[in-house]
């Protein structure tokens, strides 16, 4: 009986290489069949180790890895029906593109005619037909990446694991290959697990974004959830696009609370557990929610907070302008002002402005 389900469950997975510190520390996660899942975190956070454990190149010290309802711990990659695409691809340098792609079929004992036919079909799928007889060294980075993808996909795995697949490419190619990965994933209809340290890559591709820190999952959810509603300061700062401020709670009044320093920030109470007067809390405000108003002018309606700030630097980014402010003493505070709004009344470095936002857009963090 062939089980084609590629849903994955990690239950209490731990990994320790030295027996002292856990590189992966009690990870629980469910990934749906056919999902595109991105693990994201700084280097050394354990994301690649998780990937290698799912692939079967590393055994967990504790916990279970279940693929399609079957505990796969201890099984070889072939038995798991997973395939891995390695960082920097690990293409066999002495084999041609066609032979590289047909390799897995060759070691499975398929006849030469069969495997070359299958390889050629796959080569066409990744649009490399004219390069089929070249050696990997004769290909560009993007072409090598497609060979690696084809080589991994040819065995019809139920899970494809990608270890920083785009890191070896230059910026432009990365965006292009990103789309290609997504297209392949939809075409193959299998689960992709993709490890990256670039948040843009993760939110552009993934159905499920998993943010990691020091071997633990900080937050897992849809890209938009993780980006717009980070749980805590770490996720907010790592995913970017947020200003994180911290302050002491001065007043709790019904549906919102107010921070004392920086003074008078009103934050709506959400599902967050009770907030008490005197607590030190972190809040996040999206950079594109911040509006800048010249001192003395009226705030737009619904905007209660306004923090006097000095413009530290201005970066033109095309469709928006990045304005860096000294609003909070130690943390970075940035406003993304739409280009047209900015140039209607441009600021210069050193100007004093009021940074303000709609009360509802401030988000308390755990």
């Amino acid at each position: 009986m062939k089980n084609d389900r590629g849903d994955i469950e990690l239950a209490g997975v731990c990994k320790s290489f030295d027996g002292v510190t856990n590189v992966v520390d009690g990870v629980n996660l469910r990934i749906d069949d056919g999902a595109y899942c991105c693990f994201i975190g700084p280097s050394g956070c354990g994301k690649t180790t998780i990937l290698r454990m799912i692939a079967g190149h590393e055994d967990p010290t504790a916990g279970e890895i279940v693929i399609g309802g079957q505990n796969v711990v201890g099984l070889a990659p072939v038995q798991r029906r997973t395939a891995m695409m390695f960082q920097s691809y690990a293409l066999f340098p002495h084999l041609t593109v066609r032979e590289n792609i047909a390799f897995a079929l060759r070691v499975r004992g398929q006849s030469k005619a069969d495997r070359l036919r299958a390889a050629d079909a796959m080569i066409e799928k990744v649009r490399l037909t004219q390069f089929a007889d070249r050696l990997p060294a004769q290909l560009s980075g993007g072409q090598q990446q497609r060979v690696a993808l084809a080589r991994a996909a040819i065995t019809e795995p139920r899970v494809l694991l990608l270890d920083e697949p785009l890191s070896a490419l230059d910026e432009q190619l990365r965006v292009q290959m990103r789309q290609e990965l997504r297209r392949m994933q939809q075409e193959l209809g299998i689960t992709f697990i993709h490890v990256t340290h670039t948040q843009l890559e993760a939110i552009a591709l993934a159905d499920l974004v998993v943010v990691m820190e020091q071997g633990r999952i900080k937050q897992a959810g849809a890209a938009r959830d993780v980006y717009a509603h980070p749980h805590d300061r770490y996720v907010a700062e790592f995913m970017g696009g947020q200003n994180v401020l911290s302050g002491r709670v001065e007043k709790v009044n019904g549906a919102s609370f107010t921070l004392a320093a920086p003074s008078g920030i009103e934050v709506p109470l959400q599902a967050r557990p009770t907030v008490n007067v005197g607590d030190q809390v972190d809040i996040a405000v999206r950079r594109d929610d911040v509006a800048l108003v010249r001192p003395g002018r009226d705030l737009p309606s619904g905007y209660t907070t306004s923090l006097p700030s000095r413009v530290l630097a201005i970066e033109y980014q095309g469709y928006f302008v990045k304005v860096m402010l000294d609003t909070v003493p130690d943390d970075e505070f940035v406003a993304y002002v739409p280009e047209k709004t900015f140039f209607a009344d441009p600021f210069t470095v050193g100007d004093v402005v009021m940074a303000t936002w709609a009360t509802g857009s401030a988000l308390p963090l755990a």
Partner: protein
Amino acid sequence: MQPSQTPSRVNFAGWLYVSPLVLVLVPFFVAPILVVLAASFFATDGFGGLTPGFTLASYVEVLHSALTLKLYLATIKFTVLTWIFTLIIGFFVAYFLVFHVRNQLLAIGLFLLCTVPFWTSNIIRMISWIPLLGKEGLINQVLLAMGVIRQPLEILLFSDLAVVIAYVHQLTIFMIVPIFNSMARIDKKLIEAAIDAGASRLDIMRLIVVPMSKSGIALGTIFVVSIVMGDFFVVKVMSGGGSASVVSAFYEDVGVLQYPTAAASAVLLTLVLVAIVSLILRTVDIRQEITR
């Protein structure tokens, strides 16, 4: 530096760069070869005196002698046997060091251990086989004591077997080093990728490790083949004079002052070796493999 250098100055600098090599190669390699080549065409008075001139008599003599063919066959036999054993041992030792010793310091330590036999001279290494292989040697005594044999085995020492053993002992390192070198450059991720694709140990060996160690195997082969074919000392000592090789024959010639015949044999052997080496280089593009 001036951007526009005259060609002759560039040339001069180029010659300066290669001059150390040239200074070594010309007096110690090119000149002797030329002397031997010249001597092979000279005539002899039979008492060591050479008459400058041009005669092919020595070549005719060497090529017409039935002994020449016999000697070549014997030498090739030793070469092939030595090559097979050094290749098998060298390959697996290198494989073990590269792929099974996780700790790099340990790998380097074990690698240095392989060179321990070279801390003593060739002669001592050969003599030390005598107490082991000899008629009264360790192996015979153990076998006798165990009752496996009744008479001491005589083929252990002063035989072709002993010659091959001594060669393998001496030359395995020449296989290990280049094969180790080319294997060490195989990205471990390739092995992992092969496992991921479902390759067995044998598949990995056959499809990844061996093809990617080709240049090392070729280099090791060149070392072993040219050393064995150019040797007479081991054959002489370990066979107890019972076997001969191409070189031992012209060593004898030198002993009886037949310089032109010895020179002609030497030139012939050199040509044979050049042919073998170029054959090896034809199958493996070492230059490309090394720069890969």
